[in-house]
């Protein structure tokens, strides 16, 4: 009887473990993972010039991934890595100048990173809080990430998001002499698509 009980307890434990593993697997499947689609995405920026107009530029090399949990948005996560070396303002000489240590210092700080730490659903998207690292300085930022609608095109599921970040360059230890006629505040516009099969 004892041996049967012990056998029964063993089986019970195994079943419980299997259920736990399956539920964990189900949980992990609940979050849909998307890879950043470089072709249909863009990370651009603009900064005030002499406080009368805007100078525009973009980063051409960006990578990232999203995990979106529709049932429990708090389990969603967003990561983005921008290669600072890929800055493009439409002028080769100015781009080279921007890569220098006076500005982005791309040899010392090759990437601009964002990694979410908290996500909550809002009307029309998510409110994302996370660590934004630029020029070697990490700041916690919160921004609304609008979108999230998923469609399927040619067997590939796609989801799109848009957001706009306002950052002060002086908060990220940019050199004072590099903040002059070009405004301290820069606006980063992110329009990205994620895809999964």
């Amino acid at each position, binding site marked *: 009887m004892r041996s049967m009980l012990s056998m029964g307890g063993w089986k019970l434990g195994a079943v419980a473990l299997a259920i736990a593993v399956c539920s964990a697997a189900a949980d992990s499947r609940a979050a849909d993972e998307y890879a950043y689609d470089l072709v249909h995405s863009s990370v651009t920026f603009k900064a005030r010039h002499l406080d009368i107009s805007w100078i525009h530029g973009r980063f051409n090399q960006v990578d990232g991934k999203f995990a979106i949990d529709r049932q429990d948005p708090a389990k969603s996560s967003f990561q983005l890595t921008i290669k600072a070396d890929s800055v493009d303002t439409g002028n080769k000489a100015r781009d080279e100048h921007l890569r220098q*240590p006076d500005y982005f210092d*791309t*040899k010392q700080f090759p990437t601009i990173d964002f990694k979410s730490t908290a996500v909550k659903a809002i009307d029309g998207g998510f409110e994302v809080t996370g660590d934004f690292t630029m020029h070697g300085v990490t700041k916690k930022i919160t921004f609304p990430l609008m979108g999230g609608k998923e469609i399927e095109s040619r067997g590939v599921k796609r989801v799109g998001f848009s957001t706009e970040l306002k950052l002060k360059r002086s908060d990220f230890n940019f050199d004072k002499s590099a903040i002059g*006629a070009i405004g301290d505040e820069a606006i980063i516009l992110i329009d990205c698509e994620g895809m999964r099969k």
Partner: protein
Amino acid sequence: MPDLRLYAAAIGLAGAIAAAGAILYGLCCAVRASSAASQTRARWFARFSTCVANTWFAPGCLGLAWLALAIIAGWWVLEITPRWPPRNGLDRLLILVLPAAWLGIVAIRVVAKNRFLDRNPDRNPESNPENDADSEPDSEPENDPESNPASNRESDDGNSPENSVESIPANRPDSSHPNKHPRVADRAPPRLHTLAPWRGRLAWGLLAASILPTLLWGSVHLRVESSDGPWPLVPWLVRAGVWTLLTLVFVVHREWLERLEQRTADGSVRTALALAVGTAAQLILCGGYLKGGAAALPVAAALLGGALPIAAVATGAIRLRGWAAAASGGDTLVVSLAAVALAGWLVVGTCFGNVGLLPAAVTWLAPLLAAAVDWLWPARPSRTGRRRLGRWLARIGLVALPLALVATVAFRQFEQKYRPFTSRDPVPGTTRSIAADFPAPARSAR
């Protein structure tokens, strides 16, 4: 874009402070010499002058401190304040490498003096200021730092390079050198451990080995993206090889310059290094790294400001009793610091700025060309002041030639690449200039 007026102010202030320091030192030497000859001077002033003259080159602290003061004044004008903790290569150069080199140089010299210098004035006539002061006025007119360098060094109150660890190999087999003080020549050579001279070199090797990793810390140059693949260690081995090679070349480069400074003893090596640091600054500026290039300008100005008065005295252009002998002993401390600064700025410019490897190599090696004059035009025992000046000019000319070439090419490339930024001409196809994107001083560059 560069603010040339600000640069000129920083260069002028750093150069003037360094020159004032050199002249103060010279005047103190002169006062010391004259107060020893006559008792008319105030005793406190004579003591002060002797103290300044003795500590300027001997432990090196005062001369190097004055140089640091001149450089910091230049940075103050340029509003260059290194950040703590250091965030990039320039911060690490200004906060870690240069102060460490400064302290290391002084420590090596102090240790060498305490360990190897015979401090008994009865047995060591060159450390006795009275002997020096008495002998100087007679010997100075014939004083030729090149043909008779040892006689000058002996009057340098313990600054004698023979007493420093770097020149012990030259000292040991050469105790009967005709230029030596007779009491020194009669004396048996000091008993030193065989490895003694290598201790200083080892210290320099350790300092040199730490420069490259310190400057490149955390940058892409020390990162390997992926260690997978059949040869995961290859990238690290390549880096280790480059690091070893550059460390060895730096140690040889610095030692060569130091020996050249001892041999020439006319300020030409310091002047050459000042020109090289100035050229490095221009290369970095022309590459588009304004703060990095600007930070090197006060260093070049301070080196030049300190070197030119000494060169003027050593070549006989200015005659000041008591100064020539002491000043022409060769200031190896400043040369060592300048060699570190030159290497540091070239590493920062090459690895973080847009300075090419070839111009950087030419700028680094150009000061060594000062030695070519001795091969092309061997020194003769008796020469006039004009010939000494001619040799000095020939040395500087040989060094300046490749530096000018490199600087000209860099400036032309800068003009081609950044012309739209510095010009008020509108960009083709538009009605505005890019210069307007940058602060107002940008337009003063033109």
